[in-house]
């Protein structure tokens, strides 16, 4: 009896596995894109504990040095989805603003706090390793200054508790500065991001006004979510429902399945989802 049960369960498992494999490879004519109208634009910067001015300045000066010597641009080459949104260029930086190589305390360990759920800024890459633009930049800063690097992936919902309790020294993970100006000591702003609406090509939605009566998905505690609950609450009020998801992956699956009509998302994160969808 036990052997029969075991066989049935194994079969069930393999059927589910193949079914999943099949559904992700089947290609449909539907494509995904963004509306021309945007929700707004925000800046990404490095957040430090209030009062950590010295650390913020040191890290910012090191980032400027990496912009100047081309490291910033070469790391950006690995992340085509965000390349166009990076806001620093070597011409804007004068030589007296930049940190000197090896000027950091070699015994200092820089604890980089980030969310491992936020591609392409910080995530588990194709090789299954901790990676992303922000992670590579933080590692490069440590290498440049001569610091030791320690990754501290945290749960985004508890980022402030982690930072205040000292388990990390900064929040550097596609971190929006707008609306949080007084809550952190801010380091350099290195990227801009635009919050947009992603829809399927066959949805018939062309403008923000078309979203009236539609169901729109968003990931919890993202800039797009903050915006629709704050400055653009007027727009959200026209929706049938604003569905808040734990991750954009689930929201995107719901969009593909037709359970929701649109997703409000950062253009970089959205481009990443679309690029990944086209890859499969």
């Amino acid at each position, binding site marked *: 009896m036990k052997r029969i049960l075991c066989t049935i369960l194994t079969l069930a498992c393999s059927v589910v596995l193949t079914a999943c494999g099949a559904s992700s490879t089947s290609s449909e004519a539907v494509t995904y894109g963004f509306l021309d109208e945007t929700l707004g634009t925000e800046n990404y910067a490095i957040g430090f504990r209030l009062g950590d001015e010295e650390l913020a300045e040191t890290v910012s000066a090191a980032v400027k040095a990496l912009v100047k010597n081309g490291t910033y641009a070469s790391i950006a080459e690995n992340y085509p989805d965000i390349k166009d949104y990076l806001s620093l260029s070597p011409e804007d930086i004068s030589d007296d603003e930049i940190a000197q190589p090896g000027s950091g305390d070699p015994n200092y360990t820089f604890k980089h706090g980030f969310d491992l*759920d936020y591609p392409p800024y910080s*995530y*588990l890459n*194709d090789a*299954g390793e901790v990676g992303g633009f922000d992670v590579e930049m933080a590692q490069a800063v440590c290498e440049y200054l001569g610091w030791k690097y320690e990754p*501290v992936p*945290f749960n985004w919902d508890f980022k402030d508790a982690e930072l205040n309790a000292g*388990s990390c020294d900064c929040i550097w993970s596609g971190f929006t500065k707008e609306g949080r100006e007084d809550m952190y000591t801010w380091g350099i702003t290195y990227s801009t991001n635009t919050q947009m609406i992603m829809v399927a090509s066959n949805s018939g939605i062309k403008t923000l006004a078309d979203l009236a009566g539609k169901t729109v998905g968003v990931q919890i505690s993202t800039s797009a979510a903050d915006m629709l609950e704050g400055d653009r609450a007027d727009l959200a009020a026209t929706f049938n429902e604003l569905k808040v998801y734990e991750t954009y992956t689930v929201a*995107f*699956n719901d969009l593909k399945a037709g359970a929701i009509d649109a997703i409000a998302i950062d253009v970089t994160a959205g481009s990443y989802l679309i690029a990944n969808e086209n890859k499969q």
Partner: protein
Amino acid sequence: MTLSTMFLTMLPGMLRTIAIFVLTLVFSLPLGMVVMMLRKSRIGIVQILTKIFIAVMRGTPLMLQLLVWYFGPYYLFRMPIGGYRFTAIILGFSLNYAAYFAEIYRAGIEAIPVGQYEAADVLGYSKAQTFFKIILPQVIKTILPAVTNEVITLVKDTSLAFALAYSEVFSIAKQISSSQTSFMPFLIAGVFYFVANYAVAFGMEAVEQMFKYYD
């Protein structure tokens, strides 16, 4: 990411899940015995304090307790909490499960008829002998199914460690799922939990058979 890379990336997470599971059992099973004894203490204040402990442990979400154990030292005493993550997780899980085990043990002990104690007394057994030779074997027999339930719940509860960003199998599944926009990692995690629980159920059934010497 190929399926094998996905699996290999999740493998350390599986080992961390097993580490939480094993360490929690190692600490909570004996600790539950202590809590049960305090709960049955004849000293009123000890009994009341233990009742409050059990009520709090069972009455609040385990995730909340994990947050308190991890962030508490900083918010209460301003202590830096750098490398304390894993300790906090084991502390939180062990105390929580000890409260549940204590009540299971108590149910087992209170199920033993008073006649057993009387008979042992008549036969000249000392108190310690009565407990270890007469009562305890019967208690273990009675509580095994309830303990199995709790142990299986523990396997699945280990995923709550994601709140403290401990990269056990479920956290990694979530991260891979975001970066690959795929549900496959969750399926792998699901199969892992199922296999682990099947092994637990199988092991516990074997233990139950061992105790069926009168049937």
